[in-house]
């Protein structure tokens, strides 16, 4: 292509002398452009064969345990794919396929516990999942009958109290971190300690509440409010974290637009920033409630349990669903069955509540999310 003139015109006068490129050793090529690939039916066939062999093994020498079945299938299929792919496609593709098998197996392996938990809880819990369970307490009940009415009431009261304490503190702290601290010292310290607080074990939170209330009620006291304080220690950092994240998503332009209209700062925060982030905050709070509603250990040491309904959180033991479930399991009478059935029914109730809260949270965030084009 004759383009010498053009180059001569446009190129700078001084050019470095092009260095001669020495002939480098050519790396061995093992990926020809057109090489054989394993057809899809071959891999599908191997998968089906592996599954069949695993089931056959399960029926004869081993067990039909789903984990065993999954692992056997994965190992057989992995080996088959690796070997055939090594022969047909070369080592690199074989390794790639093997990793795909491993990673997919890991994911399926993680789903099994979830499915198994749900099956077990529903399967064991449905027997006492009846009207009596929700309308009767355990007062005077020995053996069969009775229900978790007192425990449900207790759980609702304590959760409501916890939420009432945690949500204002959590949201205000997040507002401070995002809107006021401006990278100041208190802000940094607070961020760090909220992180630390996220990691406090629930039982330690319970012990803290116990130790705190020794001051007010003396040693050995049990009351709903103590449990609420313990749960608040667990809930506040979750609310702070999620709210903070949501507030940071609110674009700065909105704040500036509001200030430019002469709106005061606190009104900008409440009417613009919090209003924009409300869906995300509600989602975060709902998930935080879902997290603490199933907490057992802190309530075990702070609230204890009782057989009758106690609606006063400031005095005396209260029954709560998780603790109810635990004691029905751990200290059954004779025969054990009615107690265990109640334990599982309480577990089923709990898991339904938690899953429902999770679902609500996702729906809220999806339906009410601000249309920011994200």
């Amino acid at each position, binding site marked *: 292509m004759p383009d010498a003139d*053009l180059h001569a015109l446009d190129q700078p006068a001084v050019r470095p002398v092009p*260095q001669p490129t020495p002939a480098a050793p050519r*790396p*061995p090529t*093992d*990926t020809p*452009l057109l090489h054989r690939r394993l057809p899809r039916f071959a891999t599908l066939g191997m998968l089906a064969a592996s599954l069949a062999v695993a089931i056959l093994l399960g029926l004869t020498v081993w067990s039909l345990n789903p984990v065993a079945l999954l692992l056997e299938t994965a190992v057989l299929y992995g080996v088959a794919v690796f070997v055939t792919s090594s022969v047909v496609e070369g080592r690199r593709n074989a390794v790639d396929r093997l990793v795909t098998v491993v990673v997919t197996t890991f994911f399926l392996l993680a789903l099994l516990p979830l499915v198994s938990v749900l099956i077990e809880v529903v399967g064991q819990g449905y027997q006492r999942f009846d009207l009596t369970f929700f309308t009767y307490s355990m007062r005077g009940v020995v053996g069969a009958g009775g229900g978790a009415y007192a425990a449900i009431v207790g759980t609702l009261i304590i959760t409501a109290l916890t939420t009432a304490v945690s949500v204002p503190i959590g949201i205000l702290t997040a507002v401070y971190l995002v809107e006021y601290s401006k990278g100041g010292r208190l802000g940094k310290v607070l961020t760090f300690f909220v992180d630390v607080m996220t990691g406090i074990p629930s039982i330690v939170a319970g012990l803290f509440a116990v130790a705190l209330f020794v001051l007010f009620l003396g040693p050995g006291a049990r009351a709903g409010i103590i449990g609420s304080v313990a749960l608040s220690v667990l809930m506040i950092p979750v609310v702070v974290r999620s709210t903070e994240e949501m507030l940071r998503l609110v674009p700065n332009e909105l704040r500036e637009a509001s200030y430019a209209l002469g709106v005061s700062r606190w009104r900008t925060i409440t009417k613009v920033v919090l209003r924009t982030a409300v869906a995300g905050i509600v989602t975060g709070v709902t998930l935080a409630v879902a997290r603490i509603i199933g907490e057992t250990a802190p309530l075990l040491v702070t609230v204890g349990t009782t057989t009758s309904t106690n609606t006063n959180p400031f005095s005396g033991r209260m029954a709560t669903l998780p603790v109810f479930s635990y004691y029905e399991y751990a200290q059954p009478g004779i025969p054990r069955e009615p107690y265990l059935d109640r334990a599982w029914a309480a577990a089923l109730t709990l898991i339904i509540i938690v899953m429902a809260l999770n679902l609500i949270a996702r729906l809220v965030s999806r339906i009410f999310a601000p249309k920011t084009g994200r």
Partner: protein
Amino acid sequence: MAKRIDVKDLDMYYGDFLAVKGVTMTIEPRAVTALIGPSGCGKSTFLRSLNRMHEVIPGAYVKGEVLVDDQNLYAPGVDPVGVRRRVGMVFQRPNPFPTMSIYDNVVAGVKLNSKRMKKSDMDDLVEASLKGANLWSEVKDRLAKPGSGLSGGQQQRLCIARTIAVKPDVVLMDEPCSALDPISTLAIEDLINDLKSEYTIVIVTHNMQQAARVSDMTGFFNLEATGQPGRLVEYDDTQKIFSNPGQKATEDYISGRFG
């Protein structure tokens, strides 16, 4: 081992959206082919379809043929991984692997392919590649330092060294100088000129002076209207395109009347 590329009636899609329509062109070996055109006209999309990087984006696919030495890159059974080893690519922003040293960056592609390579062969390859990228004299004393410590222009030449270390047939460059200062740009342009003795080079650029300086052939891409797919308007000797273009649209673009 420069190779000729024949593109036959190539359509590029993102999902249902037809981004570039009906490109037919022959890219000559041992020459620099520049692709110019306004933003969003599909130059980069077309470039990425030449080594099947296009399909890395979810939902993206291609219809038509790209023949390298009469072998269709999109024929059934062709492994995109193999294609990308033959057709290397340099990106808009320099992207050396941040956790690797300069040395390891250069051999990153080679290590994928060869199981065992003698240390001395490896050293030779690093030296040859860095020399090929006009970077050797600047980095030969700090090969073990991280590649992210270099200047932008040096990083881009490191990426070129990494690309030519695997001895591709074709080197694609997607606006390789757009993130660089004028001096680094000059270094890269000199390098492109040196590289064309060994490789087929295709470069996308926004800078028409650059296209005029470095390329032998130039293709002009344009949109007929917004929402319409991009297409190749004119493809000819660079000299012809810049002095006497055959199409009105090309002339308008080159003379700066739009785009």
